[in-house]
């Protein structure tokens, strides 16, 4: 009854990344502040500090002649284009595929950036799963969120629906504080709602994205409070003067 499954190559075999010890940036597009990714471990919702939330954002695409697989193909191919202004995604050279890593340069709350439109948080993601109708990211140490974020599309009552579902904890006590006072939640929600509006517009739809939040675990995990040492916002902040000087000297 409990022998391992006999099929040596299950249907999802090519859709999952292989386990990795540490992330590396060898296959990532050039550019951006490439901090807090190389050599970092993946985390996921098991390892974060804060309360666990499941947040589901979705937008209906009525009238768009795009099946779920068409939406996901475009989403994968043009992923950075849908992000709100001030946020940059330096993706894998081979596209969004299992095992690939990307660098994220993010604006702060309210889209705030440093002088010269410089991002204030440099971090990354790894693509852990991808098929024709979905793909998922996990986050490395230092990221704002320890989590699993799944982008998917399905059909509902005759319309294609694009969805982002995040199962997340904040990574450390400082990020959790930002979420407890509401800044973090608002920034996260605004980010994905804006992304879905842009995606809908790409398919010619003036979409009205929706959000549903559920608190899965109200407790924090104090054993993970030490994650604060890897905090990408702090480390990026310490690096920013260097980045700004580099910009100035490049111009000179």
């Amino acid at each position, binding site marked *: 009854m409990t022998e391992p*499954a006999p099929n040596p190559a299950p249907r999802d075999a090519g859709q999952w990344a292989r386990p990795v010890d540490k992330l590396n940036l060898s296959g990532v597009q050039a550019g951006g502040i490439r901090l807090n990714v190389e050599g970092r471990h993946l985390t996921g919702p*098991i390892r974060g500090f804060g309360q666990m939330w499941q947040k589901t954002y979705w937008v209906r695409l009525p009238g768009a002649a795009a099946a779920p697989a068409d939406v996901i193909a475009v989403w994968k191919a043009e992923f950075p284009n849908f992000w709100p202004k001030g946020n940059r995604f330096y993706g894998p050279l081979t596209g969004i595929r299992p095992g690939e890593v990307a660098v994220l340069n993010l604006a702060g709350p309210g889209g705030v950036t440093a002088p010269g439109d410089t991002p204030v948080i440099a971090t990354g993601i790894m693509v852990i799963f991808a098929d024709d109708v979905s793909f998922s990211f996990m986050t490395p140490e230092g990221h704002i969120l320890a989590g699993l974020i799944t982008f998917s599309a399905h059909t509902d009552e005759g319309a294609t629906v694009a969805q982002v579902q995040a199962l997340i904890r904040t990574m450390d006590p400082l990020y959790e504080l930002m979420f407890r006072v509401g800044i973090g939640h608002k920034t996260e929600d605004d980010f994905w709602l804006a992304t879905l509006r842009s995606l809908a517009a790409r398919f010619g739809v003036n979409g009205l994205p929706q959000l549903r939040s559920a608190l*899965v*675990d109200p407790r924090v995990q104090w054993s993970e409070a030490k994650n604060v040492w890897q905090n990408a916002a702090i480390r990026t902040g310490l690096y920013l003067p260097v980045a700004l000087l580099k910009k100035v000297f490049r111009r000179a």
Partner: protein
Amino acid sequence: MSKPNLRLSVRPLGGGCCAIDLFGEVTAFAENSLMDAYTQATGAGATTLLLNFSGLEYMNSSGIGLLVTLLIRANRHTPRQRLLAVGLSEHYRQIFELTRLNEAIGIYATEAEALAA
């Protein structure tokens, strides 16, 4: 929307342990059936839940999300319940490792090993 393609059976094993056998696909569509099986096992007094994956045919990332939420429910239950996994193929063991579920769910080759742990 697709339909769930997962069949579950709940087997009390005695000593506060209950096995949940999974046959088919663990995806987002399996949420209700998996949570129903959990409720049934908990109603039978289970303090140890043994998920038997030997009939698992497919799992996507939403399925992993389901297992995480199941783990949280078990951890929050009073008294706290243990969640164990048996019958995972090498492929699914690697997925547990990738997603770090192996750090929170004890993995064993057989029911006998899990029960002895």
